[in-house]
């Protein structure tokens, strides 16, 4: 009887695991000893970090997408049929079409989603760039913008923790180039008492913001947006007026996680080293889906996925554990439209962002193209 590996979710983590496994267990797949099945909810694969560039007209929508079937190794059985229930006791996944998939090993990579609907007035009054529709609307708003008060509002939890700093610095350069910065005031809000969750990034951002006259309001957790009055108010009691509100909305995990009672908010309790679901020895959790107190980011998903590939292939081939995840994360940070820096850290080593340079910016632009090699398990 073949060992069945089922992967739920065709984002960065699920795809790297599927393709990486195909490279590691070629003979087992060829002999029929192992099968790999992916269940996704779309036939397209999106390069989500590219959304940051769409509002500035620096990346075209078509560049964000590939057909998921073409990104996946042919040996992966791929079905567009959203998972509706995951029963980890019965080792069974039920989908929207009513099909049932049983498994020996399950990988849950269902990701996160933006929830502007959880804050009164946010959907109506705010712009964002964390999905394509939002990025399109923000692109139009930036084209129309002729100066005024811009509020960049960050909510918790959210994925891609450096994106708020990036969009702030990129916007400033965009407004300078457009000739409206002298009529514009940018205010950045953040939920805790500094500019970023990572203290070294927060410390680095302070002089960057000061240099460019960007204001900030810390300890700002959004209570409500009033689209008519054009104001945003925090739980802490501060109200800011805006002409253009750009929010990083709060996120939640996938509905199937909540409906299957696998974790509050859609975040699955996960061992931060093994990436196994707490209480399971055959269910791996990767990417944004975990409740691990670590950045929800494509980079995190990528390095977690590499660990899962090593462990799943060792378990399937040799019935042994391979290695633990060390918390590795590497993120590029755009510091404007022509410069960038990066951070790298793990569970024991804090990040230390260096001075911005044009070279790192070009490296990031290069990675925007090379991502498809990562998704294929080659980079």
């Amino acid at each position: 009887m073949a060992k069945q590996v089922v992967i739920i979710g065709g984002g960065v983590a699920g795809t790297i695991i599927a393709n990486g496994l195909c490279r590691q267990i070629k003979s087992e797949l060829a002999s029929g000893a192992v099968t790999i099945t992916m269940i996704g909810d779309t036939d397209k694969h999106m390069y989500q970090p590219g959304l940051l560039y769409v509002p500035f007209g620096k990346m075209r929508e078509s560049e964000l997408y590939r057909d998921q079937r073409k990104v996946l190794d042919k040996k992966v059985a791929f079905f567009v049929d959203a998972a509706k229930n995951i029963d980890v006791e019965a080792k069974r996944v039920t989908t929207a079409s009513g099909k049932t998939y049983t498994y020996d090993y399950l990988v849950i990579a269902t990701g996160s989603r933006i929830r502007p609907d959880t804050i009164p007035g946010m959907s109506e009054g705010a712009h964002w760039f964390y999905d394509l529709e939002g990025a399109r609307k923000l692109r139009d708003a930036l084209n129309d913008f002729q100066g005024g008060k811009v509020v960049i509002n960050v909510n918790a939890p959210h994925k891609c923790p450096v994106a708020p700093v990036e969009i702030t610095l990129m916007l400033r350069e965009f407004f300078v180039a457009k000739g409206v910065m002298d009529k514009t005031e940018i205010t950045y809000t953040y939920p805790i008492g500094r500019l970023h969750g990572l203290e070294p990034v927060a410390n680095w951002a302070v002089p960057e913001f000061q240099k460019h006259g960007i204001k900030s309001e810390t300890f700002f957790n959004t209570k409500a947006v009033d689209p008519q009055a054009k104001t945003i108010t925090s739980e802490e009691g501060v109200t800011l007026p805006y002409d253009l509100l750009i929010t990083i909305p709060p996120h939640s995990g996938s509905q199937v996680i909540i409906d299957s009672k696998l974790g509050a908010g859609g975040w699955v309790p996960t061992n931060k080293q093994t990436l196994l679901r707490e209480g399971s020895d055959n269910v791996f959790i990767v990417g944004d889906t975990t409740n691990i107190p670590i950045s929800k980011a494509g980079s995190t998903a990528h390095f977690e996925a590499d660990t899962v590939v090593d462990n799943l292939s060792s378990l399937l081939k040799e019935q042994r554990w391979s290695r633990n995840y060390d918390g590795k994360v590497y993120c590029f940070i755009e510091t404007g439209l022509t410069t960038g820096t990066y951070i790298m850290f793990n569970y024991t080593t804090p990040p230390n962002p260096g001075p911005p340079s044009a070279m790192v910016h070009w490296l990031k632009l290069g990675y925007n193209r090379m991502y498809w090699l990562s998704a294929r398990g080659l980079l």
Partner: protein
Amino acid sequence: MSEKTIVDARGAFCPGPLMELIATLKNIAIGDEVDVWSTDKGSVTDIPEWCKKVKHECVGVVEQQGYWSVLVRKAK
């Protein structure tokens, strides 16, 4: 009977203990508690300061072996 959720943010550089607390409070009922474990001494002041601002109750801060336990009760 209130429930207690443990947030083990020891060694967490990003997004950090207070961000984890804010995220967790969104998923629990009023009266339930969150016990944040942090190796960042800043949490000892950051978390009570934020609780005071937004009117959640910081029940207590206890130094454990190598980390701090900060207990917060959701008040609204």
